[in-house]
């Protein structure tokens, strides 16, 4: 297995799906088969990361490099799991009209973009994958017919395109300056340069671009207006993967830079502000997906905070948080989809009584919800513990305080959903409940993701070791950079 295998599988599946799009079941099975092969390849790649690959055998730094290190393969594996979960949910969740319009091929194109962004080791190639992702997600968002859906799609598109253009400008300037786009090569050349001003300018541009992609504090407005619009499966896919690609890009780029305390404190501040604003916005929301969307913003803040803390356990915490968050957040959206299916609405006031009518659903909700809030022994506890421990080690007590408070507010938000949707008596309703088969298909991916969350909590040691290994692989570049500066 090499770094391009997952991409080839997704692309081939997408191509075949485009060609044979008449028969609904053929499409579903083909799509699922593609997802399964992708998962198999991702597992294999994760077990034996294959390292650097030069596309078309052109030598580095001239050709495009792909790097399958521990970090990238870990992310590809998680992305593949989410993709498969969404594909299964889509059997029930996606209308046949949307399936005809190309839901399945677009999901696979999106997976290509996401995995490409994880695996590439070339800045311009990263831009291309961003655009592939943007294109696919844009089509998936625009599949709906309602005005709000189109409105959300348009805003999503405009802001993300602006972010891509910032990124492209920065790439152009960087190329003009250093004459290279291969990431390791950039790190080596940055280590030799003395021009801090130019570095800061280009770095700021790149950071802004990634911040829009990751939905950080001042530039997150596109996320809550677009994520709640499509079907729940698509929402889950976006919630799990898209913003995290921004975070991953930020991690990769940050590891190339020489250590800089100004930049570090700026990133810490951006992370803290994002955490607080996101969680406060979530409290005032009234539909399940809008609440959860603002929690994405807030949780991304944790990752960025961990990235800003960087030294010691910081990077490890960031990577572990990424994995945990993707699994949990996608799962919460999927559970939201089941609630919507049963109650016909996702407004929390109009729901109720699910705890007594569907106890298993309450259980399915509690696992990711408690994990998100950071209660032991679930994965979120260890993720937050790592962040807080790093903060304590570095004596950054304000960050620790904010992290704890935001965790508490997250729990409050989850309890709000619990009280309204599950606990309060069921409002008068005449709709027939969905069939067992429907519920079973919708619940299956959610059960699997819930199990993974529990496993990641119980065997946290293994997960943290993986993250630590990934962090150590990312770090040498930074060590290399720090030496000439001293």
């Amino acid at each position, binding site marked *: 297995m090499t770094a391009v295998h997952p991409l080839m599988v997704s692309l081939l599946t997408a191509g075949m799906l485009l060609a044979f799009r008449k028969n609904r079941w053929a499409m579903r099975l083909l799509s699922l088969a593609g997802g399964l092969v992708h998962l198999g390849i991702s597992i294999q790649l994760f077990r034996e990361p294959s390292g650097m690959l030069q596309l078309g055998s052109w030598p580095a730094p001239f050709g495009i490099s792909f790097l399958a290190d521990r970090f990238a393969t870990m992310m590809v594996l998680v992305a593949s799991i989410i993709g498969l979960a969404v594909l299964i949910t889509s059997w029930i969740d996606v209308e046949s009209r949307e399936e005809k319009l190309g839901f399945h091929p677009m999901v696979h194109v999106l997976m290509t973009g996401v995995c490409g962004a994880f695996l590439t080791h070339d800045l*311009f190639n990263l831009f291309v994958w961003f655009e592939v992702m943007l*294109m696919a997600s844009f089509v998936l968002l625009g599949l709906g017919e309602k005005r709000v859906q189109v409105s959300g799609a348009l805003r999503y598109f405009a802001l993300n395109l602006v972010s891509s253009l910032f990124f492209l400008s920065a790439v152009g300037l960087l190329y003009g*300056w250093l004459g290279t786009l291969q990431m390791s090569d950039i790190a080596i050349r940055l280590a030799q340069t003395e021009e801090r001003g130019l570095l800061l300018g280009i770095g700021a541009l790149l950071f802004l671009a990634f911040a829009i992609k990751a939905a950080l504090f001042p530039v997150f407005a596109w996320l809550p207006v677009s994520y709640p619009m499509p079907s729940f499966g698509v929402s889950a896919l976006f919630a799990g993967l898209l913003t995290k690609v921004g975070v991953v890009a930020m991690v990769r780029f940050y590891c190339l830079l020489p250590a800089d305390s100004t930049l570090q404190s700026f990133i810490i501040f951006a992370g803290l502000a994002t955490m607080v604003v996101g969680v406060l916005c979530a409290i005032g929301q009234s*539909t399940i997906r809008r609440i959860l969307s603002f929690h994405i913003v807030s949780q991304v803040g944790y990752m960025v905070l961990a990235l800003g803390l960087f030294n010691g356990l910081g990077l490890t915490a960031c990577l572990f948080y990424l994995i945990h968050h993707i699994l949990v957040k996608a799962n919460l959206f999927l559970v939201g989809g089941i609630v919507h299916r049963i109650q016909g609405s*996702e407004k929390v006031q109009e729901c109720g009584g699910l705890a007594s009518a569907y106890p298993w659903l309450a259980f399915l909700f509690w696992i990711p919800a408690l994990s998100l809030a950071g209660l032991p022994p679930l994965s979120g506890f260890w993720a937050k513990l790592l962040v807080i421990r790093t903060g304590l080690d570095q004596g950054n007590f304000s960050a620790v305080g904010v992290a704890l408070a935001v965790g508490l507010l997250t729990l409050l938000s989850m309890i709000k959903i619990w009280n309204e949707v599950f606990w309060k008596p069921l409002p008068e309703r005449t709709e027939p409940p969905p069939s067992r088969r429907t519920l079973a298909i919708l619940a299956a991916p959610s059960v699997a993701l819930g199990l993974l969350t529990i496993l990641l909590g119980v065997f946290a040691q293994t997960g943290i070791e993986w993250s630590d290994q990934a962090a150590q692989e990312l770090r040498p570049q930074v060590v290399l950079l720090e030496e000439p500066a001293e």
Partner: protein
Amino acid sequence: MEVLLAILVGFLYAAGVYLMLRRSIVKLLFGLALLGNATNLLIFVAAGLQRGRPAFVPIGATEPKGPVADPLAQALILTAIVIGFGLLAFATVLTRRVYDLQQDDDLDALSGGEEDV
């Protein structure tokens, strides 16, 4: 020449941002197109200007004669143009559907009714 092009890039960015801040969706698209062009020009200028020296290897030779323009920057721009073209085409289709839905290209009118999800 670099200075002139740099000023032009700045002007294009300014015009693009101005158009994007208007209420009309069509102007939003024009603004995005201008921003895209500005970015492409920026890459072109940043990679250094070389006049009349295309990066071609003459037939029969194994390397180009003398210093040539950097082909990679041009490849980057070409790719960026292609991608920008695709994205804007889709955005045009979406704008068309917005117009079909509400017979208006006002962004403010579009953002109303967010709660009726």
